[in-house]
């Protein structure tokens, strides 16, 4: 059934939707265009404009040559930092969240509700509130200004979300399945590995995408707990824009922003479909 009539109400809806889409898209378009214009051109004309000459070299400079703080290696090392933080933190927090979600949804143990409640409480604490405690923890374990420190923070904080999502997915798995496996002689981890995990790809894709984009885009912890060569790319971008030069390097900076956004954009383009599907999927057909 498809309504092909153009009722006034429908036109209005399309109009509103288009406006909202434009509001989201314009800044991205401006950045994309500027990443392909020379800085001189931007300085002489305006911030918004069609490239007169395609300045592809902006990308090369942003990637490998541009000076951030005192070093002139582009954003490449910071991209690597971000990858070294995001990939392990995403994998570890997803796996731990899956095990924790499995434990609180399919196994009854004393205090299970409390543990689940406390873990998910983390979702509701503002980030700023957690800064000081993390500072103390990082100092005490000696991980200040290290990538491992950031991995630890993102893993632990990610658990609130990954546990919540996996738990809500796993409660749809029938208890009888677990009981049958227990009678068959399987223990906690064997049941997880052989029965629950094979049912999990939809929700694991969701948590991986979510964790990856959030950790990659995270800024506050990166800028607070790391300096110089240890910073993730989000923090380094700020240093980059703060670099004082004769003429503002808007073209190169825009290219740097585009490069920094590329991983999450790719994840969205290739994984977005699975993300939506996974959110609405049930564990057992």
């Amino acid at each position, binding site marked *: 059934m498809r309504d092909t009539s153009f009722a006034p109400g429908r036109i209005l809806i399309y109009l509103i939707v288009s406006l909202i889409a434009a509001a989201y898209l314009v800044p991205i378009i401006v950045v994309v265009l500027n990443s392909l214009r020379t800085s001189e051109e931007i300085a002489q004309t305006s911030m918004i404009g069609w490239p007169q000459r395609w300045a592809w070299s902006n990308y090369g400079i942003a990637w490998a040559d541009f000076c951030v703080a005192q070093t002139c290696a582009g954003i490449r090392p910071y991209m690597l930092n971000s990858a070294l933080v995001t990939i392990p933190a995403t994998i570890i927090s997803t796996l731990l969240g899956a095990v924790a979600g499995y434990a609180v949804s399919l196994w009854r143990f004393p205090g299970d509700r409390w543990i689940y409640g406390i873990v998910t409480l983390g979702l509701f604490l503002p980030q700023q509130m957690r800064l000081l405690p993390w500072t103390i923890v990082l100092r005490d374990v000696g991980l200040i200004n290290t990538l491992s420190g950031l991995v630890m923070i993102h893993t632990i904080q990610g658990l609130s979300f990954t546990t919540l999502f996996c738990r809500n997915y796993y409660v749809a798995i*029938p208890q*009888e*399945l677990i*009981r*049958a*496996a*227990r*009678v*068959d*002689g*399987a223990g906690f981890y*064997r049941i997880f590995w*052989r*029965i629950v995990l*094979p*049912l999990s790809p939809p929700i694991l894709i969701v948590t991986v995408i979510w964790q990856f984009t959030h950790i990659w885009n995270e800024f506050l912890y990166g800028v607070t707990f790391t300096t110089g060569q240890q910073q993730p790319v989000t923090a380094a971008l700020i240093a980059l824009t703060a670099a004082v030069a004769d003429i503002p390097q808007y073209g190169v900076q825009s290219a740097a922003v585009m490069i920094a956004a590329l991983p999450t954009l790719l994840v969205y383009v290739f994984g977005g479909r699975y993300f939506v599907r996974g959110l609405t999927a049930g564990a*057992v*057909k």
Partner: protein
Amino acid sequence: MAALTIRDVYKRFHSVEVLKGIDLEMDSGDFTVLVGPSGCGKSTLLNIIAGLERQSSGNIEIGGRIVDNIAPRDRDIAMVFQSYALYPSMTVRQNITFGMECRNVPRVQRDEAVGRVAKLLQIEALLDRKPGQLSGGQRQRVAMGRALVRDPLLFLFDEPLSNLDAQLRAEMRIEIKLLHQRLGSTIVYVTHDQIEAMTLATRIAVMRQGVVQQFADPETVYNRPANLFVARFMGAPPMNTLAARLEATRGRTVAVIGYGEAAIRFPVPPEAEGWNGRDVVLGIRPECIAEPTRHFSDLPGAVTTIVASVEMVEPTGAETIVVLRLGDERALGRVSPDVRHRLSETAQFAVDTRKISLFDPASGDRIT
């Protein structure tokens, strides 16, 4: 040897008492059916036997060994679940061998066991499929296969047929019965279908609200129900239970239904004598009320002929159910389909009085 002993088992969920002192003993080779209305605690009891749930008090003994502190996997049991609980991501073969895999049984032995069970249940062609690709009946078979492959001391079945349509259920019922006769296994089988209970069981435990009402062989449960609950629960259509009073007439005890001219009298066993002059509930199965030409028995006094008006007839094909008026009460009879009654007409019926049960109206317990 007692294969399973349940001793004074109580189960509370928070403050709700779900099982209230269950005592049952089953011999090796018994097919025991736990039957009762929804929510009476059948699954809870089965889960306690399996060790999946812990009783609040009491003991479970399997094969002469107290298993209260033994994990399900070490109780030497196999279980079939209502939802079949097949592992969705595994093939039928892997489903069947998962238990052996967990117990580190060598591959050769596993393959041999799968072959044997697949042949027994005729699922050889399905072994490499996933549960999602099977029909309801096939899934049921695989679930059975998963239990049968283990050769345990005790099989536990929790409503294994309730998700099948009527025809398939009847077929599987016969197969399960044949399997039991062939293998001689000890089975505890939960159902709320009293036909399954009657056809499969060697012993039936009728439960209600966490209490066993009667534990006996099917014939006893059917013909000599321990109380009104069992009388009404077992049998379809259920036993007629009619208000009556006992009187002594010419030195014999009779049950009287109705008053004056229309009163109907049935002879009752002499053991009921003590209730003379008192109200009772008279129970009689519909099949004990039939057309007057029906030959129930040659014994003198076994059959009483009554006159009653017909309120309704329900032809089912094989027989016709008639609704009769007896005094102030309604009763069902089962007559031959050749007999055609008209509504509201008065007709004669033969009643097999040997199978009359009498109950105490206050407690509902059986008198004789």
